[in-house]
């Protein structure tokens, strides 16, 4: 009976219970959003594209034009020939970045394993404050490390007093100082990526390896490390990019031969073409890293979907070990809180009273009185708040719409729009400032023919470019959690696109948008890197004022401004922490529409 084709034994085949949409259908659900007509997305996207081109992309080209405008490519040849400043700056920057990656990697991964894999006294406390050093604004953070660990710092001088030596003990200077700042402020990239990977990892995978007979070392080598690789690679790229862009640490520890410092020095010496050359080179390197990161992130990650046994912590049981762990935790807490503590202490010191003592000798409330009452002194505070507020409003409007367009609409050039926003994120602040100087020191279509350099408006514009990605990313992340069918349901019930967007999508995005806006605002208040290149005496923001006060040895007043920034940051962190766990509705929306 060879003519009977085999029918599958249906009795044993389970019935189909799931209907995963084919990928193409899922992808094209983007179209569903607001397409009244084919060109609707373009109507929304065109102004956004124009803004991103005008203020992010076009200034980059302007900088390149500036760098080759006078001497042609001659400015670039110095990077590849001879052993001048240009070449050594590039090499120093790259070396510092590479060293930062290694140091941050060791600290961050070790911290993640300790805190996520072990249970010991003091663990929760450390976990609570582990991100504190990294949360400091760049300038005040670097200053706090200078006050703590440099030749004139509290720790080396304290040790000098303790041991009665000739000179300060273990001072960090130059590149070593820069690396200390980088390690303390950037290890969270590794810590966060590794802990997320560890928490997201299905413990049964590890257990399976043990079950199959692998020893601890083999499990590490063949299972854990390979599964952590994606997290480690993206953290490395992030640290490298951030180190490359770092400007305050080299400034405070006097390492002149880095790319960012050379940009600043050339700019203040009036050699804009040379500053532009450095900015172009740094910009290109950063963009290459951005592209590398996007390429890498597109690849597979090993986050497991299964909901089996929760990952477990090993309890330290040895009593000696427990005491040691407690002690180490306490030291850890002191080290983590020392920067903030130092700024707080110094903020109450009398200006000019601290010379060779370990800690300041005379204390006063005057610094705080000064910054809030002296019109000259509170001017920077008003400036910072004003500039940040204007920039934040811009970031919210543009960031939310770009996030919506990129996530939900289908149009040609969607990828380009995405890249343009991320470009703003990848470019170092120094480069952003030079780009804007190149583009807007003469009239330009995007400034309506006005010269913006030397005016107030260049400041909010720079902040807008720098912090747009923050709002974009948090909006986009919230949007990713919202099922597109919510908006479709509204449309189906008769709502126009605008109404559906307003009453459903935007409303549900709100916590994410708000968190992003707060983040942008607080970054604005701490902004230094771009401001220092474009401020005028009327528009100087807080951080620039801190820097100026440091130069005139008014350390106490500088620290008082710093405390103001720090308090603001912690208030915002608490508020956005609330937002995240906050409005029930949106949290649950995320839960059951994911």
């Amino acid at each position, binding site marked *: *009976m*060879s*003519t*009977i*084709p*085999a*029918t599958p*034994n*249906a*009795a*044993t085949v389970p*019935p*189909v*219970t*799931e*209907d*995963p*949409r*084919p990928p*193409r*259908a899922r*992808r*094209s*659900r983007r*179209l*569903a959003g607001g*397409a*009244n*007509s084919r060109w609707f997305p373009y109507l929304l996207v065109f102004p956004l594209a124009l803004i991103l081109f005008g203020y992010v992309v076009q200034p980059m080209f302007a900088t390149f034009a500036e760098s080759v405008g006078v001497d042609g490519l001659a400015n670039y040849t110095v990077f590849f020939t001879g052993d001048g400043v240009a070449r050594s700056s590039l090499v120093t920057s790259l070396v510092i970045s590479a060293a930062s990656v290694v140091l941050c990697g060791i600290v961050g991964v070790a911290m993640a394993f300790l805190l996520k894999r072990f249970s010991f006294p003091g663990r929760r406390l450390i976990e609570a404050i582990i991100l504190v050093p990294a949360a400091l604004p760049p300038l005040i953070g670097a200053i706090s490390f200078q006050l703590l660990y440099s030749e004139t710092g509290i720790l080396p001088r304290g040790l000098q007093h303790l041991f009665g030596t000739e000179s300060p003990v273990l001072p960090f200077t130059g590149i070593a100082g820069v690396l200390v700042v980088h390690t303390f402020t950037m290890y969270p990239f590794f810590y966060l990526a590794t802990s997320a990977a560890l928490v997201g990892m299905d413990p049964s995978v590890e257990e399976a390896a043990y079950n199959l007979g692998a020893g601890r070392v083999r499990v590490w080598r063949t299972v854990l490390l390979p599964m952590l690789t994606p997290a480690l690679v993206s953290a490395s790229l992030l640290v490298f990019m951030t180190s490359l862009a770092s400007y305050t640490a080299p400034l405070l520890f006097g390492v002149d031969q880095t790319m960012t410092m050379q940009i600043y020095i050339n700019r203040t010496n009036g050699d804009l073409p040379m500053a532009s050359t450095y900015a172009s080179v740094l910009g290109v390197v950063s963009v290459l890293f951005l592209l590398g990161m996007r390429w890498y992130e597109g690849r597979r990650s090993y986050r497991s979907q299964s909901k089996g046994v929760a990952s477990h912590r090993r309890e330290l049981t040895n009593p000696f070990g427990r005491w040691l762990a407690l002690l180490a935790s306490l030291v850890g807490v002191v080290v983590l809180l020392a920067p903030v503590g130092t700024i707080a202490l110094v903020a109450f010191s009398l200006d000019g009273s601290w010379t060779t003592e370990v800690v300041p000798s005379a204390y006063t409330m005057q610094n705080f009185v000064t910054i809030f009452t002296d019109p000259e002194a509170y001017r920077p505070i008003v400036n910072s708040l004003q500039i940040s507020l204007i920039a934040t409003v811009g970031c919210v409007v543009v960031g939310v719409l770009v996030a919506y367009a990129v996530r939900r609409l*289908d149009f040609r050039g969607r990828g380009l729009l995405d890249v343009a926003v991320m470009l703003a994120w990848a470019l170092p602040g120094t480069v952003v400032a030079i780009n804007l100087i190149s583009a807007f020191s003469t009239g330009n279509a995007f400034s309506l023919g006005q010269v913006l350099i030397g005016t107030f408006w260049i400041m909010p514009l720079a902040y807008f470019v720098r912090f747009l990605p923050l709002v974009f990313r948090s909006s986009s992340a919230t949007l990713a959690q919202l*099922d597109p*069918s*919510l908006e*479709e*349901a*509204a*449309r*189906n*019930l*008769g*709502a*126009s*696109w605008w*109404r*559906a967007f307003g*009453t*459903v999508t935007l*409303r*549900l995005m709100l916590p994410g948008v708000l968190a992003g806006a707060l983040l942008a605002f607080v970054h604005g208040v701490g902004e230094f890197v771009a401001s220092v290149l474009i401020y005028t005496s009327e528009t100087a923001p807080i951080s620039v004022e801190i820097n100026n006060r440091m130069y005139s040895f008014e350390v106490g007043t500088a620290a008082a401004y710093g405390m103001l920034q720090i308090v603001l940051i912690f208030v915002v962190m608490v508020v956005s922490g609330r937002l995240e766990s906050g409005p*029930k*509705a*949106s949290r*649950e*929306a995320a*839960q*059951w*529409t994911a």
Partner: protein
Amino acid sequence: MIDVTLESVSKRFARAGDTAAVDDVDIRIAAGEFFTLLGPSGCGKTTTLRMVAGFYFPTSGRIRFGDEDVTHRPPNKRDTGMVFQNYALFPHMTVAQNVAYGLKIRKVGRAESKRRVEEALGQVHLAGYGDRRIDQLSGGQQQRVALARALVIRPRTLLLDEPLSNLDAKLREETRVEIRRIQKESGTTAIYVTHDQAEAMAMSDRIAVMESGRVQQIGAPQEIYHRPANAFVARFIGRSNVLSLPVAAAGPQTVTVALPGGDQLTVAAPAEHGLAENGTALVSVRPEHIGLTSATEAGALSGRVSELEFTGMSTNLLVDVAGEPVQVTAIDVPAGLAVGDQVGLRLPGERMWVVRP
């Protein structure tokens, strides 16, 4: 209540190459009918429904509500009520606010809106739940809110995209009875998408079986079950043996095929079956229609039991007939029947049916 027509509707997605997600679909749904699009994953049934809702526009073809051409009309101007697979309830609104959303857009007055919301909630047995938050409801209750929200606007058509797939088995059966009752009461034309053939059979006036973007057969549940148009439908709906047998003689509405034992059997065939003597016919026969008898009975195919599975209500057997497996479902099985035993199979000529490949 309105009739819905799809005229040679095709949909190609820009990035999916040349393959059409929906390929030349022609469907006419009568006013008040409960019509189901049934098919496996990726067959184009959801895409078809979304074109009716206006979330996609067809690449070619027309969609009409009554005489109105709605092919390129935006979703908010179509007056359809859709129940989404994951319900898509607005998490920031209460139950009543969810149901009232469509009424608010239609500028229905406050009192009238309140009355209609209460009526709709009553209809789905959720009276008094109006002030609850969505997350305080169970999955089944959420499903009914979604239904109330779609019905309260008195849509011209009710569109249901696998609304039961997130419910557990028992609730699924209860809810499908409810949906059918409410649809009958309101008299709304309903288009229902599912991959579950039992659900489709139980609920529908008519079913369109889809595969690879094409409609394979449209018909009433009985028709699709007993007279499947092709081998795909025969196998997809219920379980079926599709035997390919040599044709001994071909009539206008029947085909006589030769069985392995040498006997001949005349089987009903669709008109224009296109078969001729010496060709091969595909004949569909349901496992439960095959009679189990002793191996020695005259006219029965003899075979060896190769698998035996007792399911309580019946027994599923796989019988090896000259090297080919045939599925048989029997209520009564001789006591002591075991794998390896010889049995006889009686093929029911009157219940067999020639299918197209």
